[in-house]
């Protein structure tokens, strides 16, 4: 038997691949959200009732990335990156861990499933959070090819193929790169 074995603390490891992937996707989703909140009729309808200045935060618990969207004067959601103060958000949507954020942002599970499985916690009005998450699913159907998005499209409004292709083209070559 070894003598004087030292019992050290174990620091939490990293999941760099997932952290970086989620960060990148958050940027795409944020810019995509902004563009599609002007382009897609369903999203426009859904966010119509939110007051001007309404701020939504997505954050990955406990120490992960965050992303803000803010409704501006013109009535669409502006992507604000992580530039705002957490305290100013009217609605905060927290993902309980990086794995669950990864599943959601890569469209492997839908928002309603994430809710049902208690993977998300919410500060603010739950009904508004449901609405935003539904919009997020719509944004994902534009961003991801059908084969990936198949888990989440089941309960979404049918968007015609051509419209989705045009939307997808515009999001990738116009909305996201230029922050329109």
């Amino acid at each position: 038997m070894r003598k004087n074995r030292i019992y050290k603390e174990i620091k939490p490891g990293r999941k760099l691949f997932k952290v970086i992937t989620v960060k990148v996707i958050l940027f795409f989703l944020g810019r995509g959200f902004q563009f599609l909140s002007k382009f897609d009729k369903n999203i426009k309808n859904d966010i119509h009732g939110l007051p001007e200045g309404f701020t939504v935060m997505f954050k990955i618990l406990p120490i992960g990335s965050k992303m803000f969207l803010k409704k501006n004067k013109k009535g669409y959601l502006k992507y604000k990156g992580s530039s705002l103060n957490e305290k100013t958000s009217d609605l905060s949507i927290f993902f309980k861990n990086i794995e669950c954020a990864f599943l959601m942002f890569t469209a492997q599970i839908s928002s309603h499933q994430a809710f049902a499985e208690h993977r998300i916690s919410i500060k603010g009005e739950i009904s508004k959070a449901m609405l935003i998450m539904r919009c997020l699913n719509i944004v994902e159907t534009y961003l991801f090819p059908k084969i990936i998005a198949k888990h989440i499209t089941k309960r979404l409004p049918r968007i015609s193929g051509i419209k989705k292709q045009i939307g997808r083209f515009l999001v990738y070559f116009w909305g996201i790169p230029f922050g329109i």
Partner: protein
Amino acid sequence: MIPKYYEFFNPVKILSGHKALDNIPYELEQLGVKKPLIITDKGIKKAGLLKYVKRAFAESNTIIGSIYDDVPSDSSLETVYKIVKIFKDNSCDSIIAVGGGSVIDTAKGVNILITEDSNDLMKFAGAEILKNPMKPLIVIPTTSGTGSEVTLVAVISDEKNNTKMAFTSLHLLPRVAILDTRMTLTLPAHITAATGMDALTHAIEAYTCIQKNPISDAHAWMAIKLISENLITAVKKGKDKKARLALLNASCMAGAAFSNSMVGMVHSLGHATGGICHIHHGVAMSIFLPYVLEYNLIKIREYISELLFPLAGNEIYSKTSEGQRAEKVIECINNLRDELYKLTKLPRTLKEAGISKEKIPEIAKLAIGDGSLTFNPVDMDYEDAIKVLNKAYK
């Protein structure tokens, strides 16, 4: 079938029996508290139910901090603030809620403010966001419907802003639920019927919605069996202790089931109808239940079929061929509704509930935005909602 991932949590200690209340002082001592505030409403005071609670304290050294008996039928923000003040002024250390859904929700709201030491309840709205353990809450249900004694949710309405805020947190769960028959013996027949149908809906929706899981299924299954065996008896013979205790147990189990597995489209339609036409929640559940099962049939025939066993018993289950069981379940529920209509005039359609047809578009609009729709196995858009509502009208 076991889902890929699920959570189930029910830490509530349950005492069930004809005189289960007598254990209150012991339970308080176990919780390390000495001075509970009792929260209740006028109807319960009038029915003389508080005397059982007060008598349970006799020959103990526990003082009742005070009794607030003026909770309105819709739990309100203002009431919460009033009660918080009484709690602090009388230096209470725990809460006993005696009542139905609105009393229990109010008590949960009070508990949030006391724990967070705040005077703005709306700051804490949301799902699974509260972090601090709360004051011990003991719940004594006086109806057998909502199951709020074992749920982690509270809904409080803000009259000034005309909204309803929802709070869900595992910390909101009561520490003890006391199911004492004496508290429901005097419940009128029509309320017994309506609340019983609410509990039945909780169990059926928990069993058929997207987060069903083996543990909540077991709770839902037994709740359905107890309700189908005892609801009519309790409606006919209010003083039947056995039937009353069975229903209290059933609504408690159904509560534990749906608090974890959530409810679906019956509640979406019911919340919307209640919000616009102000009908009793249980009445709305009873009206929509068979129509929603029909609507969901294409996706969950298997689960609905399984429910024939607890709902109708062994004999009918084995006599009915596999392909016909789901339809038979709907038939059984319709028969139950017919019988309740005969006994208490419990409405079976929107028309019987006195709702005008013009309201249907408004109800449909509100229903498709309701949160519980998220958990329904089949989605519903505006046109679908109109179709179901029209069916439920005639």
